[in-house]
């Protein structure tokens, strides 16, 4: 499926794994960390105008709201460039449609099935959930692509992840991807695409698919991609109604005899609630095993990010936190991934549930996930987080520890004050 999208964008009949191609890009993306160097690169190519002001997305998401003067200068540089070039999809903080890049690109209907897109941000692979080819690149790639509308790719081999069955209660996309990474390792999909197939696909919501594709990079993958089905079409009908009505998208399907270097068969029912221990995302285990072996206190919980910062995630969180209290000694940060998610949580009363439970509710930002701001960990602190990386120093001090999990485990851990499964939560007493 990836190969077909790449061939179409390179103007070729077919491509095969290993081919080096130059492909036209439908969309490109950058943030306040990666765009400032890309702007310098853009001018160094000799270009003065971007190739297409409608196909570039720029979001101040990482150190915004600006954490210090240097970050403010970066945001300013991006803002001025976007204004000078008339970038259509520049999202100012607070503006309608603003949020964490990978939350808002699908939410605002900017990516469509069949698209070929890059982002100067490794989690650009999120958008493969819609049946697009989406991959992360660096600032030099983005800067050159803003000038030319093209970039080079090495056509990847594909790993097939064949899904059947149904997920168990509380188990979601995050658990599935942590499960897959625990099986193949953090370089198990290096240079390869991760293509999801099988009857189990239909059971997965778009939110699950976005989470799963988001962490393709944590297996070393070039991209993750789901086939286009009714779930996809329903999603774009809601989020990109005009493109949907005009059928302004292209559905690519894998050939029945498509070549895969590896096939992983997974019965969704076998996937447990997962926790990935420090310091690699491949250190995933059944939460019950982790909780049994490690009863030590945690100091922080983060619920949000490009991995788990969409409305469905907070709906699940509110159901578990409503009427309960965050344990003493734990700081629980709730970070809606976009203004739209924030507003919907506000209108539906979820933010009140979170505040009642003793959580801090923050604005959309990547801040704590990258140890940037708004929830940085001190030495010896332990955090359960719905984010995507638990590397040394990722969320703060190199002596801190991050445990990756899905939303239900994060909520249960916040309430219990240690790593916990939602099954351990005491029953709520009806008032």
């Amino acid at each position: 499926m990836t190969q077909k999208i790449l061939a179409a964008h390179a103007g070729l009949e077919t491509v095969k794994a290993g081919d080096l191609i130059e492909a036209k890009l439908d969309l490109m993306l950058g943030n306040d960390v990666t765009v400032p160097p890309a702007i310098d690169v853009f001018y160094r190519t000799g270009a003065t105008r971007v190739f297409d002001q409608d196909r570039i997305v720029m979001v101040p998401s990482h150190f915004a709201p600006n954490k210090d003067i240097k970050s403010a200068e970066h945001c300013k540089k991006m803002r001025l460039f976007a204004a000078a070039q008339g970038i259509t999809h520049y999202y100012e903080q607070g503006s309608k449609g603003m949020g964490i890049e990978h939350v808002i690109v699908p939410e605002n209907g900017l990516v469509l099935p069949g698209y070929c897109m890059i982002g100067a941000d490794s989690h650009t692979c999120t958008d493969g959930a819609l049946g697009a080819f989406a991959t992360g690149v660096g600032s030099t790639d983005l800067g050159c692509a803003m000038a030319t509308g093209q970039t080079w790719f090495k056509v990847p081999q594909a790993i097939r992840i064949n899904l059947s069955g149904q997920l168990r209660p509380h188990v979601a996309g995050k658990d599935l991807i942590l499960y897959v990474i625990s099986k193949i390792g953090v370089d198990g999909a290096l240079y390869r695409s991760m293509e999801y197939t099988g009857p189990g696909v239909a059971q997965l919501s778009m939110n699950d698919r976005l989470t799963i594709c988001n962490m393709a990079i944590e297996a070393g993958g070039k991209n993750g991609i789901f086939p286009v089905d009714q779930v996809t079409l329903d999603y774009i009908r809601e989020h990109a109604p005009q493109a949907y009505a005009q059928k302004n998208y292209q559905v690519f399907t894998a050939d029945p005899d498509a070549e895969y270097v590896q096939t992983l068969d997974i019965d969704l029912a076998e996937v447990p609630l997962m926790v990935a221990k420090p310091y690699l995302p491949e250190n995933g285990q059944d939460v019950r095993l982790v909780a049994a072996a490690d009863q030590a206190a945690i100091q922080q919980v983060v619920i949000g990010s490009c991995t788990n910062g969409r409305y469905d995630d907070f709906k699940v969180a509110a159901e578990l936190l409503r009427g309960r209290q965050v344990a003493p000694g734990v700081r629980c940060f709730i970070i809606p991934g976009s203004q739209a998610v924030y507003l919907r949580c506000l209108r539906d009363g979820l933010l009140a549930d979170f505040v009642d439970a003793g959580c801090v509710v923050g604005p959309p930002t990547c801040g704590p996930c990258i140890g940037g701001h708004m929830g940085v960990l001190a030495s010896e602190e332990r955090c359960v987080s719905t984010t995507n990386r638990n590397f040394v120093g990722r969320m703060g001090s190199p002596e801190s520890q991050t445990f990756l999990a899905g939303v239900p485990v994060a909520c249960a851990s916040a309430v219990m004050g240690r790593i916990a499964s939602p099954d351990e939560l005491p029953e709520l007493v009806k008032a």
Partner: protein
Amino acid sequence: MSENQTKPGDAQTDCLLSGKLYCYGDNVDTDVIIPARYLNTTDPAELAKHCMEDLDADFAATVKPGDFIVAGQNFGSGSSREHAPVAIKASGIALVIAASFSRIFFRNAINMGLPILECPEAAADIQAGDQLKVSLTEGWIENLSRQTRYQATPFPDFIRKLMAADGLVGYVRGKYDFATTEEAKA
């Protein structure tokens, strides 16, 4: 590469690496190469000050031009931050040899001109203190201390073209004539 530390060999890109070897394991990620808390700057010299800080606190203070890094699998995994190869290059590192590179780091290194070689045998064999002679164009690494020669994965022609053009910017400048295009539009 600093001329004091590296001497030209047979071809122009062949060089003798007599600098200090920094040896690391698998999965050296971009968060330890340059922690995100320092991504509020793009200044190479400033980034170099914090290079490898969370993995090897002595690196930035001891590294000299012409030194090199040898590491295991999946070097540069994680974030796409180009600040990582920028920090390594600005710290004076002349070459990174690894068993494998994460794909975004690989792209970034090629695009911005940090010399890299992918060679599992060399990564497994080379020890601290070894003296190396390498050819970036031909991709061989000679371990003078152990009298062994390793062959790195050869770069495809397109990648060589990028490298010959001094990275992606040079390639794009050579391929596109933006000035003409702008004038034509005007």
